[in-house]
């Protein structure tokens, strides 16, 4: 490789490659849940401050995405689904991703602290630490429970949003955390059932590989059942109400029904119809989370009319 290859056309990173490094799709979930956490909190926040806070929470999430891509570049090169990411494709160097990730982490925490309060800023810092160090560095490659514990990182944003408004933690924010935390494993394992990534080649212990696909199906059912009481409990708190309760009952009934269907399926049957039930369950899991948090938003927006809430 000559030095010329570094400036060869096609290898030079465009602006979009840096955006891709921040995992914009994951960011959209972070933005939505953090926004709900902030809006449903009992303390009003100036709209501009709220906008800034959510922007920097999203940036913090993006920074952890860049650090994750830096650390996992070796895995991403091996797996087909991730081989076109900026680092494995050779458009951005690993050092550049590390630098960008670290700089944006510090910036986002500082700015969130300045815009709202230092508890929220520190909480964002902890979340980045949790995702990058605890999940990416320690757990992802060592235990098939990686998804379960790593899911906590994705569950923190509504708590950060709540902290922006109130400066602390409350049972309501803990239950919002618990909802995403319990939702993550069935969501990801359903994906793992039909994506069939070559995790074993990449050295990542996935439940589907270590314990088998039948065991993964049972795990999905168990977590889905455990998720239901969390959703109902959240709807009974001060941020819940009749709308949330009805949403929780309907959504969880459908979610459990989907999980039962998955648990009962034989692998051959699933393969025969190209994982139709698993794909449907995965798509529904996205709607499940969106509608749950949407219901919380509805409760809050009905409050000025004397409706919503208990």
């Amino acid at each position, binding site marked *: 490789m000559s030095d010329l290859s570094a*400036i060869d*056309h096609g290898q*030079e*990173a*465009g*602006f979009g490659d*840096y955006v891709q490094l921040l995992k914009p799709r994951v960011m959209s979930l972070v933005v939505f849940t953090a926004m709900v956490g902030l809006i449903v909190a009992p303390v009003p926040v*100036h709209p*501009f*401050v709220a906008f*800034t806070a959510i*922007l920097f929470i999203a940036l913090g999430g993006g920074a952890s995405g860049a650090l994750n891509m830096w650390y996992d570049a070796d895995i991403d090169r091996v797996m087909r689904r991730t081989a076109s990411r900026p680092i494995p494709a050779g458009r951005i160097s690993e050092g550049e991703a590390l630098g960008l990730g670290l700089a944006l982490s510090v910036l986002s925490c500082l700015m969130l602290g*300045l*815009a709202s309060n230092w508890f929220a800023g520190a909480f964002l810092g902890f979340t980045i630490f949790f995702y990058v160090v605890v999940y990416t560095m320690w757990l992802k490659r060592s235990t098939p429970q990686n998804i379960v514990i790593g899911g906590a990182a994705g569950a923190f944003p509504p708590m950060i949003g709540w902290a922006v408004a109130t400066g602390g933690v409350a049972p309501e924010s803990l239950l919002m955390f618990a909802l995403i935390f319990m939702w993550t494993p069935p969501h990801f394992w359903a994906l793992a059932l039909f994506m069939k990534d070559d995790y074993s080649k990449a050295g990542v212990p996935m439940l589907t590989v270590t314990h088998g696909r039948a065991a993964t199906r049972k795990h999905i059912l168990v977590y889905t059942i455990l998720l239901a009481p969390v959703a109902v409990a959240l709807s009974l708190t001060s941020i819940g109400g009749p709308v949330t309760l009805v949403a929780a009952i309907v959504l969880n009934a459908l979610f459990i029904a989907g999980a039962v269907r998955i648990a009962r399926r034989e692998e051959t049957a699933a393969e025969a119809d190209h994982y139709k039930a698993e794909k449907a369950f995965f798509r529904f899991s996205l709607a499940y989370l969106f509608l749950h948090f949407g219901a919380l938003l509805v409760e809050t927006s009905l409050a000025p009319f004397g409706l919503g809430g208990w």
Partner: protein
Amino acid sequence: MAIHRDHELHGRRFGRNLGLGLVLGAFVALIFGLTVVKISHLKEGKLPQAEATQ
């Protein structure tokens, strides 16, 4: 490979610089907006107290 005045690479580089410029501009606007909000809140919070002491 012939050297053109505007290689595809230049377009990419320009896009990157433009993007970064816009991001930095937005950041400045954000800080300014935040400052305005914080200072006007500070005023609102402090004025009644200042009047009360007079």
